[in-house]
Structure formats: structure tokens, C-alpha cells
């Protein structure tokens, strides 16, 4: 257990061993680390996480979002010496989590029953793209495509148009935030019952879950979800309206009669607001095309910020469709200290991570604000930066062994 002097955090004394790249699994690790777990992230310079090379920002700039507050070490588990050191780590961990498929783990000699023999009370979280068991268990997948497989893209987009794609792997994040709930639950259960648990999750299942009420509607009424653009069966006007500037839009959602009256007042109570065709939700829904045109005429020569402020001041739901600059400069997000400065390391395939140059970027805080034991932003290590601590201090390996295994590229 932890020393008496350090202030306790929610997961003080819990050690988590993380093996796997991309988004969902590392996000789970970051959340657990923010809550005070010691998360040991196993990577290798020989096969770098492709997330280091996402081009929307400087290479490696996004990695603090996923890897901060962790202990980052390098082990090539495909080498005999690396695998042995990995198994020593299993023995001192409360949780092992990975997102590799069974055929890959088999090839490397990582076998769940054996891990449980090495550490009988370990919690195992096994996450894959499509599922660790079942007919697709060997199938490879990427999170960004699961918006299609999980049923969401076919219900997103304009009527009669192709499915709208979201330029992100958002289903990954669902999985990434589900898993800490299950892991903490399993740790509590282990404490109370003495029983560990093995759990399997997939991006596919997380995505499919969010198809939500449409699944029940189809079963009971045979109805398929339709693409209806930005419209809503319970609100009008409801959509995004173009404003002054390049690709500038304001979203407006008028959900109640009170909001409709306030909306009409804000736009100067034009005559059309009084027409019977717009006097009730049903009539506004029935005449949406004309309504959208009239609202769009009002927004067209204003800034999106002005439209939002005027409407929100009158109690009407509205928001700028935020671009990167809006988020970066947002006074609201600044007041909440959402984005924070962080170092990062400029990823370069031609050399090992310890030779990478440093840079300064930003990372978001883990969103929940806990009043007594806050989510820690924590420090940011480079790949392999915590090798000495983990191999020598934690596992008690000799300097000579660590040097030898580093030189033979087992711990590399």
C-alpha cells in the first residue's frame, strides 16, 4: 500500500498494466491514472502507435491526451526476455488491460489463464475492435469505422443523401470511458467478495449500444431509422443557420412555445411570426422549409456569436457551431481551465523516442470536476522515460540486466 504521508487519491495503491495502442484503451488508462492509479504503459520503439502520426496537429501533439499521468516503459513482448519481464509486471499488477486480438496475443505467448496463474486475483479487461470471442474474433478493425458498423451513420445525414460520416473515431471514446467504470467495479467487487473478474469489451458493442431507442422501435414497430438532417420531431425551428464569415453557423433549437415567443421577440416580431402557419409546434413542423428560410434570412447578415448571444439572453437554446479557434479561445472553457499547457514529443519514425525533440502543446482536462479528490492532470512522460523506475525500483532488476536487455532490444 502507499505511504502514510502522501495524500490519498481515489485509486491510490492500484496498479494497472496497459498494453495497446490507439484511442479507447489508452483513454481508459488516462482516466484511471487521473484518479490516482499507477498506470504502467508498455510500448516499443520498434512498432510505434500510429496515433503518434495523426496529421491534424504536430506529430505526437495529441499523445498527451491519451498517455499523460502514466509510467511509460518500453518492452518488446515478442522477445523471450521482454516477455519474461512483462510477466514479472503482471505479478505486481491489480489490473491488466489490452486491446490486441487473441491470435496476436497467442503468437506472443500472452495467455489469460497463465496470467491468472501468475497473479490469481488480477482483473483482466480485454478490449478489441469487433469482439474477442465470436465469429469475428480474429478480425482487425479501426474505431473510426465502427460508426458505420454500429448503425449510427445510416441514421445521420440529410434525407436522400449518403450517410454522414464523422471525421473521428468517436465510438472508441465510448469504450474508453465505459471501461474505467467496469474496472473500478471489478476492483470493489474483488475487495468485497475475494473474486476477480475477466471482462471482454469491443468498440463494436459500444457503438451498437448507442443506436439506442431505435433498436426497440425497429423490433416493436418495424421502423428503420431515417436520416432527417438537423431536424427534430419535437422542435422547430431546429437546425444550423448560416451566419457572416467563412463556414460560420449558429445552431438554434426552439423546443417550447415560451421559447418560440422569445425567439420572435428577439428577431423583432416580424409579421410572419404571427402567421397561423407558425403558431404551434405542429404547424411549424409542417412548414419547416419556409421557416428555415426565414430564420436563415435573419441570421445571414449577423455573426454567429451575435445570434447565439441574443437568443441565449432571451432563454432560447442556441450555440455557435464551434470551430477549433472558438474552442481554443473560448472564455467559458478558459474559466473552467479545460485546455492546459503540456509538453509533447515530436514523433519521428527514423529514431527511438528518447531522441525525439520536445514541443509545447495543449491537452484537455479529464472533464469531471471532483470537489475533494480531483482528476489529476499529472505530468507527461515520453515513451520509455520511466524504464528505470519500473524495471529497477519496482521489479528490482539489476543495472546489468536492464542494460543487457536494453542492448538486445528486449526492453526497447
Amino acid at each position, binding site marked *: 500500500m502507499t505511504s502514510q504521508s502522501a495524500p490519498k487519491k481515489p485509486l491510490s495503491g492500484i496498479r494497472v498494466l496497459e498494453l495497446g495502442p490507439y484511442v479507447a484503451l489508452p483513454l481508459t488508462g488516462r482516466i484511471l491514472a487521473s484518479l490516482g492509479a499507477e498506470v504502467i504503459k508498455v510500448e516499443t520503439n520498434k512498432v510505434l502507435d500510429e496515433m503518434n502520426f495523426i496529421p491534424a496537429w504536430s506529430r505526437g501533439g495529441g499523445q498527451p491526451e491519451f498517455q499523460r499521468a502514466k509510467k511509460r516503459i518500453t518492452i518488446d513482448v515478442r522477445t523471450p526476455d521482454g516477455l519474461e519481464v512483462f510477466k514479472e509486471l503482471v505479478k505486481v499488477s491489480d489490473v491488466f488491460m489490452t486491446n490486441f486480438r487473441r491470435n496476436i496475443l497467442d503468437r506472443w505467448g500472452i495467455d489469460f489463464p497463465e496470467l491468472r496463474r501468475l497473479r490469481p486475483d488480477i482483473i483482466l479487461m480485454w478490449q478489441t475492435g469487433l*469482439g474477442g470471442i465470436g*465469429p469475428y474474433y480474429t478480425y482487425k478493425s479501426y474505431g*473510426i469505422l465502427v460508426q458505420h*458498423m*454500429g448503425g449510427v451513420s445510416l441514421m445521420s445525414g440529410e434525407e436522400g443523401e449518403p450517410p454522414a460520416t464523422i471525421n473521428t473515431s468517436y465510438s472508441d471514446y465510448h469504450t474508453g470511458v465505459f471501461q474505467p467504470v467496469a474496472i473500478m467495479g471489478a476492483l470493489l467487487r474483488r475487495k468485497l467478495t475475494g473474486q476477480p473478474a*475477466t471482462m471482454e469489451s469491443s468498440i463494436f458493442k459500444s457503438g451498437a449500444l448507442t443506436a*439506442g431507442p431505435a433498436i426497440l422501435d425497429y423490433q416493436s414497430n418495424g421502423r428503420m431509422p431515417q436520416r432527417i438532417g438537423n431536424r427534430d420531431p*419535437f422542435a422547430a425551428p431546429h437546425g444550423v443557420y448560416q451566419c457572416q464569415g467563412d463556414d460560420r453557423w449558429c*445552431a438554434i433549437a426552439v423546443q417550447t412555445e415560451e421559447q418560440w415567443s422569445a425567439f420572435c421577440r428577439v428577431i423583432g416580431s416580424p409579421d410572419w411570426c404571427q402567421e397561423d402557419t407558425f403558431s404551434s409546434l405542429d404547424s411549424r413542423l409542417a412548414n419547416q422549409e419556409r421557416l428555415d428560410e426565414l430564420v436563415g434570412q435573419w441570421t445571414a447578415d449577423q455573426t454567429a456569436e451575435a445570434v447565439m448571444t441574443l437568443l441565449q439572453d432571451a432563454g432560447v437554446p442556441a450555440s455557435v457551431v464551434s470551430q477549433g479557434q472558438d474552442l481554443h479561445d473560448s472564455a467559458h472553457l478558459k474559466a*473552467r481551465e479545460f485546455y492546459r499547457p503540456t509538453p509533447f514529443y515530436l514523433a519521428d519514425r527514423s529514431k527511438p523516442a528518447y531522441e525525439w525533440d520536445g514541443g509545447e502543446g495543449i491537452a484537455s482536462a479529464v472533464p469531471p470536476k471532483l470537489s475533494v479528490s480531483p482528476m489529476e492532470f499529472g505530468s507527461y512522460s515520453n515513451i520509455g522515460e520511466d524504464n528505470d523506475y519500473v524495471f529497477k525500483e519496482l521489479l528490482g532488476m539489476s543495472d546489468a540486466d536492464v542494460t543487457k536487455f536494453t542492448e538486445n532490444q528486449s526492453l526497447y
Partner: protein
Amino acid sequence: MPFQAPAEGVLLPPYRVLDLTGPEGVFCGKLLADYGADVIKVEPPAGDTTRQRAPFVGDQPGPERSAYFLFYNTNKRSVTLDLETPRGRELFKKLATSADVIVESFPVGHMKSLGLDFDTLKADNPGLVMASVTPFGQTGPWKDYKSSDLISLAASGFMQITGDPDGPPLRQGNEQSHFPGSQYAAAAIMGALFYRDMQDGAGQYIDVSMQEAMITYYTDAHPALAWMQRGENVTRVGTNSTLVIPLGAYPCEDGWISAGIITPREWENLSQWMYEVTGNEEILNDDYKGGNQDRAPYNDIITALVMDFTTRFTSEELFHQGQERNLVFIPVNTVSDLLADPQLEASNFWFDLDHAEAGTLKYPLGVFDSEDVSPVTKAAPHLGQDNGDIYGGELGLSETELSSLRAQGVI
């Protein structure tokens, strides 16, 4: 409540959670309830407004038949309580002393105006964990801004990257805003309970902003960082990504197929397969080789070549044959495909839940498959079905007191 072991085969201890949420936080209680917490939905005497929300089972309106309510309230219990009355608030305080967790999503300050804010409630229950899930959080200049699913998608910037570059920003059809804030709230609640019960810590208050939660659900696009480092605003890319090329949805013989080529080796495999099928040597061009960002300058020509290839196959052919070549082609499914999917079936994703009015339907409950723990399998509660058990049995109110509360419309 004492720190109690979960029932056999259940994940979570039976923590008592009072769920006062609307759509902003309703999934938080569901997630905790599905895995074993004792979640009590506290509804106004007329019922939660989402009970009136279409579509209804069998297209017959009724407070026990809303697909929305049925989906988001599985495994919860229900009591009715009018928090607008002094006796209702008094009863809520009593209920709160028996709770481990309260989760609410009222406008900022509403609970305080009722005298039911965290500082007041913790006086009688120092171990209480209370979480608020609101559109913009409890502090900051936008804290009182009104919101909705659409507004959350706009404010977080999710819409900015959804849809066609020549069209407007688009909404996701699954009410995406229901998930991120609620999921983070559930994770934070578990952390706070862990702190209380494993580290001898105090109870605490949790502030979750849906906007912040949603921003972190597309960190791989990270628009604020892209703006800071490149001065560019990340935008919509239609059905094809610019993060990775080729990646997106492509037409095939029987609809759509999605594909993602991320590693240099995958490109080798795909380009070789495309050449075998189409005979077009262009795809073997050395300029196109390498990691995903190396193909960025050739997005248009590569996309055209990929479409010439995908339209020669069905979705199933590409899905399965792709995997044989270590390539990721993924079907574009609708809800009927999900219900028929062999993988979801094999991994215990679906559970049949019986409901007296809605009948037996398959619900997606198994986000975790395990031989050790399973989801709980109770359908959503009928309005106020647990008033007797909870107010009478557990809080010890007499039948006379209950009748009086009913007569006054408090419950």
C-alpha cells in the same frame, strides 16, 4: 449505506443512486443500474416527461410504452415525488440520507433554490456523492445557457466535423449528447465511491460539463490543438477522412462499405489486391506508398481508384475477404443488421427483458461480456411502482402518512 458485496454474478455493489436526471444525465443512472447499482428514478407525480416521447411500442402512446423511456431506464426502480412542495422536499431529504449517490441535471442553481444542494444534503450524509451533469457545467460564463442535443453537438464542435464539406454541419442521429457526459459522470462517481470506501475518504460533489465531455470524444481531430499549431480549423470531410487515406465509406454492389488503410503494410496489401482485380497499374505508383499521411496529396485519385474497386464487390465479400488479407473493410449496418449480427449474438450483447405493457424485447446491455459478471435484466419501471417498498418498507412511513402524501399529490 454500508459498503455491501454485490450479488452473485453482479459487478457493482448495490449502491443506492437517486436519479433526478433528464436527457442530459439519464444514461449515467442506466449504466450504473445495468451493472448492479440500486438506481431509483425520482419522477414528478405526473411522470418523467420522456414517458410521453414517441415512438411508442406498437405505436400506441402511453407512459409505459415510450421506446426512449424503456431504453434509458432499464434496471431502475421508480418513485414519484413532487420536489416543488415542502413535504416533497422533506421526504427527498430523508431519501437522501439513505443514498450513496445523487445524480441530477437540473439547470445550474435549481437544486439550491429547492434547498437540496450538496452542502445541505451532506450535513445529514457525510459520505454522499452528488454529481451534476449539465450542458456547460456549474461555473463559467456559459453556465446558464440553454441547451439540447443539437446545441450540445454545436457547442462541442462535433457538428463542425460531421457531414459534407459543401453542406451544413450535421447532427448525429443517435442523440450522441446523451452519452459522453453521462459516461464520464459514471466513471467519476465510481472514483468517488472508491475514494470513500477504499481510502476512507469523504463524500464529494462532481461537476460534469457535457460540452467538455463531448469535446474529448473526438480528440483524434483535436480542433483546438490544430488551430494552435497550424492555424487551421478542422472541418467536414464528407464520407472520406483526411486523417487517414483511404478511409471512409465507399459504394459497393449492395450499398455501402467502409474501409480504413492505416499502416504501410495495409497499403501494400490493398494496392496489390486492387491491381489483381482491376488490372490498373496506377495504384502501384511508388508515390502512394508509405504511412497514412503520405497519401494526403493524392486523396482524390486514390478515392476514385478505391471506388472502382469496391463497386465490384458486395459488402459481405469485402468484409470477410479483406480480413483474409489483413485489411479492414467494415459493413455499414442499420438496426436490423445489428439484431441479426452473429458477433453480437455470440458475445452476449442482447438480453430479453420482459415488461408488462411493452412485452418482451431485446435490449443491448452487454457492453462487457464476462463469465464472472453479467448485466441485470429488469425492464424499465412503471411510474411510481416502488413507492410502497421504498417509502413504506425502507423509510418506514406508515400507511396513513403515505395516504396523506398521495392525497396532497406529493407522491
